[in-house]
């Protein structure tokens, strides 16, 4: 809305012709910065002087117009080109495309001789050339020989393994017996035994070493390192074989027949190599286009190609190719077939099976989550219970011996925890991917509970309470001072009581005279909420209290005071136990209801 509109609405007519003014005003207008948005709206309201549309002269400077007039389109020329310029002899292919640049420029010798831009994308795989027929025959003989030997060796090895395993078992049996016998003996001999074990192991290793040597003697030309890796592979294979014994037996029966039946002629191999080159080792396509009289599987083609490539590369004695040879050797046809079979089976699952599997996974995850949640809750709870209790008589740690005790306890506790942590670390490494539940607090583990040395603070506290029934504190009693000793020699316990004698031991005493009635009971260092519930319990038990938080026995003798203190502590302990029990019960209920839901 401009000022004009407002004037119109208010029926205010303007006396002077606006045209003139506009012209006058418009010249300074151009210098003003162009306003946008709100600012412009406001500006429009000022008066009729501002034109609603501003012409910015920036776009129409003299130079810019001149530029436009003088603009010359860059030249494009339709040029003839040969996309295969670099590759080989002229085959006369002439195509035309538009190229930026003048004709003269593009026809200069330099430009003409430039290779076609997209020519560089035409790259080929370098595949070993197939050798001539003679060497091929030699290679094939070697391969067959090698394979036969490999097979024999595998059989042998299988037997060897069987025997070894039996031996091992026997040895283990022996060891076990020995160990049992030795356990009864003193532990000093342990080191000696270890040495013996070592020896035994060495003995075990020896036959294998011999094996390898034998193996090395058999094939004529191979390097030892190669042979060893080969053997490792074979070992793996035999292991796999042991697992699926029945299947393997079938395969073994098939293999020799197969090899004899489908002999690779030089021509067919040549055909294969050509296909590999043409289709750049894209095996599915090579297999698709493979059209020879023999019916072969994709795996057959791969195996033959790879084993020949190994031979060809080896014959070249190029050390830089050794890693390539290694990777080529890694191909194993039976394993490949087995792998594909497994994949096939995986795909053949019915929808019901898949759904079941999925639901199981989901359920497992839910369980995991629930367990995790529960563990967190429990650990929270236990840390709550485990936290150093302020009510506990700190005086037991005030003597040097008490401190030493505490220190020892803590040290052992720490050691234990470190062990646990190490175990957990191991566990974590074992199953790194799985979600790790929070570490179980020491007190929660059952082994910890069983351990007598490690009681929870609660237990310690309770036991100490029991002990206090007899004597205020064992630590203090041990630390009896000389005066106390002297007095206790002279006086009987009854007399001590009668005289109102009390040994403070190492208790810290406030200097000066203190009335017992004003003394604050140590057990009263509690939370307000717990005190409240303690109060309730006390009322239930009809125990007179001083009222408020400053409960005092009516007659604050030392005995009643200590008893009272004891009482309050036990009540607090009771309440805490009850609280813990309630929490555990609700937890159990929760889990039960969850199970019910599942």
């Amino acid at each position, binding site marked *: 809305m401009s000022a004009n509109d407002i004037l119109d609405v208010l029926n205010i007519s303007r006396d002077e012709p606006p045209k003139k003014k506009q012209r006058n005003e418009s010249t300074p207008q151009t210098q003003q910065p162009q306003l946008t948005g709100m600012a412009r709206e406001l500006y429009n309201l000022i008066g009729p002087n501002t034109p609603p549309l501003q012409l910015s002269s920036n776009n129409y400077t003299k130079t810019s117009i001149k530029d436009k007039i003088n603009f010359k389109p860059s030249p494009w020329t339709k*040029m003839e*080109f040969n*996309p*295969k310029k670099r*590759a080989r002899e002229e*085959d*006369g*292919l*002439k*195509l*035309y*495309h*538009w*190229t*930026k*640049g003048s004709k003269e420029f593009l026809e200069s010798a330099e*430009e003409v001789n*430039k290779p*076609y*831009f*997209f*020519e560089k*994308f*035409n790259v080929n795989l370098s595949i070993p050339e197939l050798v001539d027929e003679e060497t091929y025959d030699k290679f094939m003989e070697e391969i067959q020989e090698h394979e036969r030997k490999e097979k024999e060796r595998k059989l042998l090895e299988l037997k060897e393994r069987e025997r070894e395993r039996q031996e091992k078992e026997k040895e283990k049996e022996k060891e076990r017996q020995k160990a049992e016998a030795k356990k009864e003996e003193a532990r000093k001999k342990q080191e000696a035994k270890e040495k013996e074990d070592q020896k035994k192991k060495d003995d075990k290793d020896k036959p294998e070493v011999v094996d390898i040597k034998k193996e090395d003697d058999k094939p004529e030309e191979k390097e030892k390192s190669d042979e060893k890796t080969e053997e490792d592979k074979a070992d793996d294979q035999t292991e796999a074989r042991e697992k699926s014994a029945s299947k393997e037996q079938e395969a073994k029966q*098939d293999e020799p027949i*197969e090899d004899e*039946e489908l002999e690779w*002629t030089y*021509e*067919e191999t040549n*055909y294969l190599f050509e*296909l590999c080159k*043409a*289709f750049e080792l*894209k095996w*599915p*396509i090579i*297999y*698709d*286009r493979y*059209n*020879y*009289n*023999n*019916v072969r*599987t*994709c795996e057959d083609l791969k195996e033959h190609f790879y084993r020949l490539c190994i031979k060809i590369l080896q014959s070249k004695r190029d050390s830089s190719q050794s890693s390539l040879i290694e990777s080529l050797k890694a191909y194993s046809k039976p394993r*490949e*077939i087995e792998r*594909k*079979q497994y*994949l*096939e089976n*995986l*795909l*053949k*699952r*019915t*929808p019901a099976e*898949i759904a079941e599997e999925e639901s199981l996974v989901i359920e497992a995850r839910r369980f995991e989550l629930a367990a995790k949640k529960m563990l967190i809750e429990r650990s929270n709870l236990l840390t709550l219970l485990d936290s150093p209790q302020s009510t506990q008589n700190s005086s037991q740690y005030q003597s040097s011996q008490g401190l030493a005790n505490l220190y020892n306890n803590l040290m052992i506790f720490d050691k234990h925890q470190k062990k646990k942590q190490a175990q957990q670390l191991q566990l974590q490494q074992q199953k790194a991917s799985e979600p790790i539940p929070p570490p179980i607090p020491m007190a929660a583990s059952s082994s910890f509970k069983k351990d007598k040395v490690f009681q929870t603070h609660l237990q310690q506290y309770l036991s100490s309470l029991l002990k206090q029934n007899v004597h205020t504190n064992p630590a203090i009693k041990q630390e009896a001072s000389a005066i106390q000793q002297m007095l206790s020699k002279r006086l009987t316990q009854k007399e001590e009581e009668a005289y109102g004698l009390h040994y403070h031991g190492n208790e810290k005493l406030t200097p000066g005279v203190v009335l017992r009635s004003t003394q604050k009971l140590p057990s009263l260092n509690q939370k307000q909420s717990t005190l409240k519930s303690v109060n309730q319990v006390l009322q239930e038990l009809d125990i007179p209290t001083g009222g408020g938080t400053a409960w005092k026995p009516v007659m604050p003798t030392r005995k009643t005071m200590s008893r009272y203190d004891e009482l309050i502590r036990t009540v607090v302990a009771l309440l805490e136990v009850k609280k813990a029990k309630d929490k555990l019960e609700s937890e159990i209920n929760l889990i039960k209801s969850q199970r019910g839901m599942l």
Partner: protein
Amino acid sequence: MSSGGNTTTVYGGDEISAIILDPGSYNTRIGYAGDDFPKVTTSSFYGQVGNGKRIFGEDINVPRENCEIKPILKDSIITDWDAAIDQYKYYFEDTLKVDYKDQPVLITEPIWTELPYRQKLIETFYETFDFAGLYLAKAPTCISFQQGRPNCLVVDLGHDTVSVTPVIDGICLIKNSMRTNYGGRFLNDEIKDFVKSRDPKIAVEPTYKIKTKTPTVYPDPAEYTVKKTIPTTTESFNKFQQQRIWHEFKETALEVPERKLNSTNPQQALSIKEFYSQDSQKRLFEFPTGQSITLGLERFQFAESIFDPKIYKFSDENIAKAYPPNNGEIKISSHYNEYRPLKRIRKPESNQSTPAPGEGDDSSEKIRGLSHLITHTLSTIDIDLRASVAHNIIVTGGVSLIPQLIERLYNELSNSNPGLKIRLHAVGNSSERVNQAWIGGSVLASLGTFHQMWVTKHEYNEAGADRILNQRFR
């Protein structure tokens, strides 16, 4: 547009405006590479008038005396060579005004072409037209290029044929491909058979004959008057015009049912049939005479026959004979028959991990519907490729435009391949879906890297047809 100097272009294109020729069994498409759509989309039929002159394009629909309408191609393979050459010449020279020397030509071919046919094709092209270069591209390869998916399964629902071809790295796997003839023509014949058997009195008159018409609904008789001054046309012309009616029928009335109509559970089958016979599912189809026919379950049954070809029983024996049971396997002689030493043929191995199509339990299957065809193809593909191929199934061709077909296909494939994640890609634009192979060819021929693939006549003469076909046009 750009070449050496301009290297910033991302798509690596270099337009040389090559000619793309995509002969299909219903329509033939011709145009320039780099275009979105072919310049010429013409019928793959031609009219031959009395003096031997051939008529192409829309002109064949003009009623003339002694004008025989004949097909040029069958199953995307040229059968009438003279007519084909004539047609291409007509479009190249008269319509597009191509200067052969200036640009090369890319021709799409189906995967089931035999070696002699290919030899003849390139020979004819080199002899007749003087293109700067030539390339034969397989249609599924072009379609994979159109979608930019190097690994995919191309499901082409064409007029003559339905084919399923796995494409790996842009190269078709021929051994795994399948083809049936339960395509558009099959549907046309079903409709024709249905209308004829329903009531022979239903007048099926082509549009050009009708002067006036009054809308009626069957069983009321048609009310129309016929033009008086029409030349006496040949039978093949009339048949062709009738085909156009069936074609329209197919395009307008058919819909694929959501579930199988022939359920194994009889009660369920009944309820499904009842559902599709409801009034809300009924549609009218109006013949050129103004007479409409009400279609209920039938229109679903026709579409269902894409998935289950047995569902419609032809009442006309002759038509039924044209569609023998077809399980989709292709017998192709090798493109690579250079090396064929005489040797005894061995028995195939028992433990094949990549079995040739047709082996195993499926061999008993005589007739394969679309989803069976795809499932079978998937099951024959190498296990390592299966997942990626199943995730990239491209559905193309005119028949795929029947409503609900993609949804139904997805459901059936997901059910029959629970272990695979099926994803279907069908272009939303209908004209794009019909011309997909041509568009793919257009993409291919405008790539800068592709220009090294053209084969000149010089190279052809030097290397010979065999070598060119085996090594260049694979």
